[in-house]
């Protein structure tokens, strides 16, 4: 008898493509009921990790297990309880979306007709069209419907919203939330920080095949900065003295600066004294996050 505390456990995993190291000593753990974000720029190795987890490519070194089973050896067993949406969904051009969904559901043998029809309606997918005529977003919807209509314990989603419009993104987020509420785990890779921020309990940041930071979204607050552009009635003096404020620039369209997310309140309080007439906030981007990560680790 043995038990697992982690749905997914990866330890010291390395994957090489020939001489090229796509993943270097990657470790992570996903607990039951957790939505785990995996974030990194293009080419960081997100898809590679997912493909190793799915047992369709073999790790060069290290262990990876899902549900306590080896991802390579017990792939078929694991897959009975895993649903996957690839980043780049490719389907048979001369099949309809509905046929593809049915094939996937049938291969998994978890039939849930009503759930499937509900999802098709929610994602506004026309299942009678040939896959050839689908846009990237529509192909993604096919994979999403197939994944969410199956009764899996772990959902692996590789940049699932890269082709969806904002409305569909909302629906996707709702689906993730529902899955989470029923106690299942989600592994979500993305290069969009906001998406991860909104959905995930825990996040790993990967760059050049290495995980550089892991923690809850709260833990990573120290890394996130909000960019602000503002116009005020009186010229702003002394902003540089407020803790956590960086990169102050005066431009034609007002004053621009960045502020650490944890210091945002004091900065706002300070600004109101000058009579704010306009305020634009842009959420932190991944690039800014990396910049602050390297600034912090350097000094």
């Amino acid at each position: 008898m043995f038990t697992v505390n982690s749905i997914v456990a990866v330890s010291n995993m390395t994957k090489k493509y020939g001489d090229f190291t796509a993943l270097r000593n990657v470790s992570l753990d996903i607990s039951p009921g957790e939505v785990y974000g995996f974030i990194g720029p293009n080419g960081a190795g997100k898809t590679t990790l997912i493909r190793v987890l799915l047992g369709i490519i073999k790790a060069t070194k290290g262990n990876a297990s899902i549900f306590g089973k080896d991802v390579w050896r017990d792939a078929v067993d694991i897959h009975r309880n895993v649903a996957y949406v690839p980043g780049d969904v490719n389907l048979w051009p001369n099949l309809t979306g509905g046929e593809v969904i049915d094939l996937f559901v049938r291969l998994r043998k978890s039939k849930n007709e009503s759930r499937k029809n509900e999802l098709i309606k929610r994602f506004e997918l026309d299942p009678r069209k040939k896959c050839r005529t689908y846009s990237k977003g529509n192909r993604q919807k096919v994979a999403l419907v197939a994944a969410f209509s199956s009764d899996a314990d772990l959902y692996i989603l590789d940049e699932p919203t890269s082709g969806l419009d904002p409305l569909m993104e909302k629906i996707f987020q709702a689906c993730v939330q529902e899955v989470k509420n029923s106690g299942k785990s989600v592994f979500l890779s993305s290069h969009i920080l906001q998406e991860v921020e909104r959905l995930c309990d825990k996040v790993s940041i990967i760059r050049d095949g290495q995980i550089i930071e892991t923690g809850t979204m709260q833990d990573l607050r120290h890394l996130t900065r909000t960019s602000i552009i503002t116009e005020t009635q009186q010229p702003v003096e002394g902003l540089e003295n407020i803790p956590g404020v960086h990169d102050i620039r005066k431009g034609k369209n007002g004053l621009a600066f960045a502020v650490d997310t944890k210091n945002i309140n004091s900065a706002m309080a300070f600004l109101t004294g000058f009579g704010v007439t306009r305020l634009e906030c842009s959420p932190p981007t991944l690039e800014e996050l990396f910049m602050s990560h390297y600034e912090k680790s350097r000094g």
Partner: protein
Amino acid sequence: MQPTHLRRIVYEPLREKPGVRDMFANSFALCRFYLRRECPKTIIWFVLILGLAVGFGAGISGMYPDQDSLDAMLEPLNNPSFKAMLGQYYLDGGVLTLGSMYSVYTLVWLLIIVGCMNAALVVCHTRKDEEFGRLEVVRSLPVGRMSNLSAVLTAAVILNAILALLIGLGLGTAAEAGRGMDYAGAFATGGACAAFGIVMAGVSAVFCQLNKHPGTAMAWSFGFLGMLYMTFMMGSMQENQAAVNISILGLAQRSMTFVANDWAPIILTALIGIVLCIKALWLCKIRDLGESLIPSAPGRSDAKASLKSPGALAWRLLRGWCAFWAIVVFLLGYSYGSVMGDMEAFIESNDVFRQISQGNVMVMVSTFLLIVSVMGVLPILNFMLKARSEEKRGYAENILAHSASRGSQLRGYFIISLVAAVLVPFISAAGFRAGSVLVMDDPIPFGNWIISCVVYTPAILVLLGVAVALIGWLPKFTGWVWGYLGYTFVALYLGTLMGIPEWASKLTPFGHVPKLPYVEQIGSAPYILPDGTPLLDEKGVRVITPIFADEATYALTGNDIAAMIIMTVLSAVLFILGFIGYSNRDSE
């Protein structure tokens, strides 16, 4: 608290090794899926193959209405060039029956077509699906590492079995009963096809594990089939039984369909196929999805310095095709050249040939030259029309937006086509020479082949000119140049058969090409040689055997040369017109 569904997983005992069943999990579901998906394509293949097998089975008794006509075939069948093409024939109780004639005429070709069907099927659902990422989601489902390949191979086996039954039933029913044709032979024919089909399915499956790109895997498979046929030809010609067997085609032929109906070689062939399939499955098990066992060279990160002009880009896109077509044209010349050994027998083997050649060997040779030259236009037009298809697909915009002049965009494809137009006649001449030199006692000199092929160059250039002019002025109708080529073929090749009037052949540039080697025809009476001797006596039996290397002349008359100059000038005018039109019209 853990949700209940998690507990279910957590307490499952860990097995030491994944079961074999896991490796093939869901294989049958996938197999059903492929069979359904393949249905339309399969029907086309089946119609083609059954049309050939059954249609010929029904028609052959009309071609050889009595035993005398079959006995007359014995001599040509013993001829080395026939042996090379068709392999060994078998006698049934000392006589060449209709069944044995059918067998030697069609079996090898049926095998080759069935082989092509299997290669296409396997590559399409393994490497192609993999390369296009369609297997990614499939493999994330409870589907084993070998499930997909085993599903495809199972589907191939099932399709081959159905095909074998259909051939057996169809051919058995269609063939004239008696005269050595029966159901047993028909089913053996089907069995041989199925067995060879499994071999090619296995071969392609192995190649799909070795190569990353479906195109390469397909090319290897067809190349392998070509090699088998070459081996078969060589082995049959030299009566080298080992080579014949190794070619597998020859092994399957040894089942002596309609004669002995020996199933042992058929079963052996099928076993070879199954071993290959197992090998492929084993290779599939040990590799990553999307990877190949032969590492593919990484693409260039930056373009070579030479890839800076649109012309160089055109070359980069076409160079693979150039090599492919060069081989095709050479083999075409080669295969026609290789029947030169016994042309008389070749002509007499078939009414159509007899009519075309009017019983004259040299007319037949010039017809071969015509056929190969017209075929040689295919790659040239293909290269040129690439310019148009690139434009249609919008790729050309990428280039045009980068300050390359419109003319230079077209020029790249034009130069490649022009070079091809000049080279193709030489390549086909080389093919003719290579094919004929082995089988002729007194081979036609290479120079004569070259002249005979190169006289077609001006006509080829005119067709290229038509293509360029259409691209320049009537881009919507560029496809019509194919129709013109088709007309050329019909008017000149089939013209003699169908009695198409003389002027019709003059509407195409190929009608103005001097047909070498020259044969002075005396009067309108065929069957007469330049020196006045009749070729055949009144019963149609050959009187003399001309050695056409000596008798034929390859000298061009003043009129010929004038026609060639006029055609060359005409093509130049068409080129210039086309370029003017292209640089002045809107891009699409």
